């Protein structure tokens, strides 16, 4: 029997000990009218047959040369990352409730928290949330709980990933929070600090600042942070962790720094995988610590003075605090943080900094090549990190379809998330794209744009 080790003799021994004639008898307490006949599922296959099935299906999934970013990024992942993260002891253990039997996971999580807090210049970090979008949702709820203006407005710029904003909507809808969208400057592609002035004095609970924003543009984080702090609002920095190899960390924005930093950890060694599993990270300044959702690992000692690590501050969590917990999260994205910690250790400071710098340089080069095509222009003027919004001379959808057939995933169609942007394309080039890749894209796009319709 697949995955069941019982021999007929074992079964007899066990039934005898229990004192029942057969396994079915063990279900006697279930009302008979509830018991269902056999289910209509596909027939069981051996591992060999399933293997063939899945290999065939995986082979039909080919990504091609990818210039899409939009919240998920193709990066070099050292081979060692998953070779180690995939070890059975990391893979098949659970949340480290028994600290003494889980020092591997716990010590790693402590290291992970340190790395993320270091990257974001925060005082503490948790052991992960589900993904960037839901992580932002948690950050917003956390900000609302901690704010000097309870029940105040949550300002959510339109320059945030449309799906992130949708998740925040879904997560806050039943909380009666007032989430307000901030429009962006159509020339620069980012929030004009003046836009905020209309909220002056209006009990702003929190301001979320994306850096870089969804268009790849760099927001004026210092000005925005200072404005929000002056209003008594909590500042949530939504950041791409790879960009932090190059960009100023949220903890240092403006005079006082942001209060919370969050984002999606996917760029740190996690494969694209059609969208998941990734992980959300969440860091904060000391005063907000006890409002943090999720697992947190702390350092402590045993009676002999040996250093050890343990889940701590559990009074925040659902299994202790139930309805009063900071979140309902229980299972998180543990294994992904194992990979991220290994990934960051392999890259080191220079690795992350150079990766970020090369991403920027590649994107710059890509944009130069693409905007050399007649009719292709940059949509926004603001400085960028590794994504740029372009305006094409034609609607984007058919262009992308044609590019895909030629083996190129050409970018994200901004019309999906923004009205009146049907000719806008968001492109990205990370360190994985070579000069030859960029040329191929530019040549192919140029050809596609010149092909007669039909």
């Amino acid at each position, binding site marked *: 029997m697949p995955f069941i080790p019982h021999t007929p003799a074992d079964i007899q021994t066990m039934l005898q000990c229990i004192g029942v004639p057969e396994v079915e008898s063990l279900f006697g307490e279930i009302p008979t009218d509830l018991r269902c006949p056999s289910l209509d599922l596909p027939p069981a296959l051996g591992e060999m047959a399933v293997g063939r099935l899945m290999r065939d299906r995986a082979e039909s999934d080919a990504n091609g040369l990818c210039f899409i970013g939009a919240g998920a990024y193709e990066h070099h992942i050292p081979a060692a990352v998953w070779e180690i993260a995939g070890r059975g002891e990391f893979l098949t253990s659970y949340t480290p409730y028994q600290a003494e039997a889980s020092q591997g996971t716990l010590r790693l999580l402590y290291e992970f928290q340190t790395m993320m807090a270091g990257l974001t210049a925060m005082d503490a970090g948790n052991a992960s949330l589900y993904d960037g979008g839901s992580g932002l949702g948690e950050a917003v709820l956390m900000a609302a709980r901690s704010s000097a203006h309870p029940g105040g407005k949550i300002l959510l710029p339109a320059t945030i990933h449309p799906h992130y904003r949708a998740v925040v909507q879904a997560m806050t809808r039943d909380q009666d929070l007032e989430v307000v969208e901030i429009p962006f400057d159509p020339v620069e592609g980012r929030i004009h600090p003046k836009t905020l002035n209309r909220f002056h004095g209006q009990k702003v609970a929190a301001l979320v600042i994306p850096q870089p924003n969804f268009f790849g543009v760099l927001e004026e984080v210092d000005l925005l942070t200072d404005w929000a702090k002056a209003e008594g609002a909590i500042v949530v920095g939504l950041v791409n962790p790879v960009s932090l190899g190059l960009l100023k960390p949220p903890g240092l924005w403006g005079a006082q720094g942001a209060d919370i930093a969050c984002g999606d950890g996917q760029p740190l060694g996690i494969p694209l995988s059609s*969208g998941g599993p990734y992980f959300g990270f969440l860091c904060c300044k000391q005063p907000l610590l006890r409002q943090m959702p999720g697992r947190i690992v702390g350092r402590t000692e045993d009676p002999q003075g040996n250093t050890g690590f343990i889940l701590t501050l559990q009074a925040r969590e659902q299994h202790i605090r139930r309805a009063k917990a900071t979140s309902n999260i229980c299972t998180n994205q543990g294994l992904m943080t194992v990979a991220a910690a290994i990934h960051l250790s392999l890259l080191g400071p220079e690795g992350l900094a150079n990766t970020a*710098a090369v991403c920027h340089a590649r994107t710059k080069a890509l944009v130069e090549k693409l905007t050399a095509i007649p009719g292709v222009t940059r949509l926004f003027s603001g400085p960028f990190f590794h994504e740029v919004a372009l305006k094409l001379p034609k609607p984007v959808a058919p262009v992308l379809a044609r590019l895909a057939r030629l083996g190129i995933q050409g970018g994200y169609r901004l019309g999906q998330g923004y009205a009146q942007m049907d000719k806008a394309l968001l492109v990205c080039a990370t360190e994985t794209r070579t000069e030859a890749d960029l040329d191929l894209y530019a040549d192919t796009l140029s050809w596609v744009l010149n092909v007669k319709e039909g």
Partner: protein
Amino acid sequence: MLETIFDISRDERRNSQHIPEPPAPAEEIPERFLRSAPPPLPRVSELQVVRHYTRLSQLNFSVDTQFYPLGSCTMKYNPRACHVLATLPGFVNRHPFSNDDSGQGMLRCLYELQEMLGEIAGMRAVSLIPMAGAQGEFAGVAMIRAHHRARGDDARREMLVPDASHGTNPATAAMCGCTVREIPTNSDGDVDLEALRQAVGKQTAGLMLTNPSTLGVFERQVKRMAEIVHAAGGLLYYDGANLNAVAGRVRPGDMGFDAVHFNTHKTFATPHGGGGPGAGPVAVSERLAPYLPVPIVKKSIDDKGREWFSWSGEEDLPDSIGRLATFAGNVGVLLRAYVYLRMTGAEGLRRISGFATLNANYLMARLRKAGFTVAFPGRRATHEFIISLKPEADACGISALDFAKRLLEYDFHAPTIYFPSLVPECLLIEPTETETLETLDRFVEAMIAIRREAQTDPQRLQTAPHAVPIPGGGVGRLDATRAARKPDLIWKEKMSR
């Protein structure tokens, strides 16, 4: 003594094989946006990284190395085929926004998984999006609220949960803006029906129930409960965390539930990964279908008559509670569940719940015969059961915690302790179907031996573990109070010599 990765960091150590050549300085990014110092990450060689994390891994107990009867967590064998086949290059390298043409293999798997989960749940429609059980609960309660709201009855904001319910249930209700009312359990481990009857009313949004419950028994009156709640205008949510006990035998839909989540990482054998990732797909009855979180995989027939799979979003489900994940949830985890279900089929699933139940009942019978106190002696165990160490605690001055810690020294992971909190000094024991009789017998022997120690040498338990015998990583019982009193959550020492 193993160090942290920061202890072994040294200035100017680097892995050039992973460091791209720096480009010309990024002049066009104005200074004010840039960080002034490199990020504080460790500087270690690749060998150091591999050795450090390999050795760390060895400090863990895990299903691959130990019996791990952690109640409510279903720590069963995670077939390697699921892992390997879900991480084939075609699957892991695909961008979430790549066009659907490039994802037909993955989408077909997910579509079929939706169908299979619907059948297993006895429900009408499925969304795979929630990324863990708790998010599945969120989706469920949010759908229940959306349903009431759509009926113009938004005052229904009280969620009922049994007092033995898992912490995520009340926490979820709260996140959905509900107040929580707990319903007591009777001495048999069933919900007190009379109390339920009295609790329902116009304010009732619904009831969240795990069945079998977290007490390790099947809630026999579940249909009566459904009637009571439905009659009062509320809906019923099924927390599927314990589905491994009944999968293929009883369907939440048939029990009267309106929504259910699965914990694929429990029932469908995704490895737990030291905390995750899992996935928490939700299945719902007809009336909640319009509210499912998006996106959902839909099937159509293309112009050449072939099946065609694509994500369908807000356009197709305008009443959806919306998005809970940035992209499409934990696709990789869902593929693991798909592979697992293809290997078990319906009969295999039934066998799984059968043998999970057999193992639990055998272990319970043996422990009871050995004189341990079973929490609900009149009841069958489901896939798990509870024993109370209250008598041992009273007699010897030891606690369930002491017992658990001593078990680690016997090379067993401890069962869940102090949950559910109704039963004093309890162990919630879930052996799962993938463990052998021999392992169960060894566990019983260890339990008996420890109880003997409790009588003769209670201190041995109270100070356990002395050091889990793993090289360089052994620690004795860690001081949790100290950890919480002055939290030390990140490494602050200087990071190089």
